[in-house]
């Protein structure tokens, strides 16, 4: 079975620029998650989708971050404008059920903001 696909693998931008990450979850997985993993810390949930609806975006900095999951399949996370503190690995995950008993993670996008 194909895993969670993410692109790009790496991205380097300057502060105040914009960037977008793409994620394609495992086929049939209704729930999709975006996590931010800062070096030396555990992943932090940014947003959780159930099909194409948002069920938790309480930790998403909405003044600069946005995410969408059109048609309930793949998803895009955008940062505009980026700040230095946004440097992190952005992980996408999916799960079959909304209770998220087992998450499948992609390899992540490593973002460096200079």
């Amino acid at each position, binding site marked *: 079975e194909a895993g*969670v696909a993410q692109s790009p693998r790496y991205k380097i931008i300057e502060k105040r620029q914009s960037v977008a990450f793409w994620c394609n979850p495992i086929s049939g997985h209704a729930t999709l998650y975006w996590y931010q993993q800062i070096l*030396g*810390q*555990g*992943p*932090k*949930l940014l947003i*959780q989708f*159930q099909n194409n609806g948002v*069920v*938790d975006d309480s930790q998403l900095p909405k003044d600069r971050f946005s995410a969408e999951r059109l048609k309930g399949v793949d998803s895009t996370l955008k940062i505009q404008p980026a700040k230095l503190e946004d440097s992190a690995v952005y*992980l996408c*995950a999916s799960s079959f059920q*909304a*209770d*998220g*008993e*087992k*998450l*499948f*993670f*992609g*390899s*992540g996008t490593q973002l460096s903001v200079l």
Partner: protein
Amino acid sequence: AQSVAQPEDQVNVAEGNPLTVKCTYSVSGNPYLFWYVQYPNRGLQFLLKYITGDNLVKGSYGFEAEFNKSQTSFHLKKPSALVSDSALYFCAVRAPFGYNKLIFGAGTRLAVHP
């Protein structure tokens, strides 16, 4: 509020010796507990979970974890460590039911020496 603590940044163990990676948690109600492993340049992989039932749960690659409600702990164990077990290990917790988010600890780096 939910929280997870992994008190050790790094655990060193010799190959063939038993290993323990510690985790304590705080959550309202009966917890759902998880261990994930992260190998270099790869996404997190599910190892095992505790939802209910036997306090000792077995997972992938010979790992097991013991749930201790009175000590609010969920330590990861393996009877005999392998060099290939060297990786970053994350404990995670979520409150039961609904869309409660998965909260990760900061991670513990396991180094197994030949």
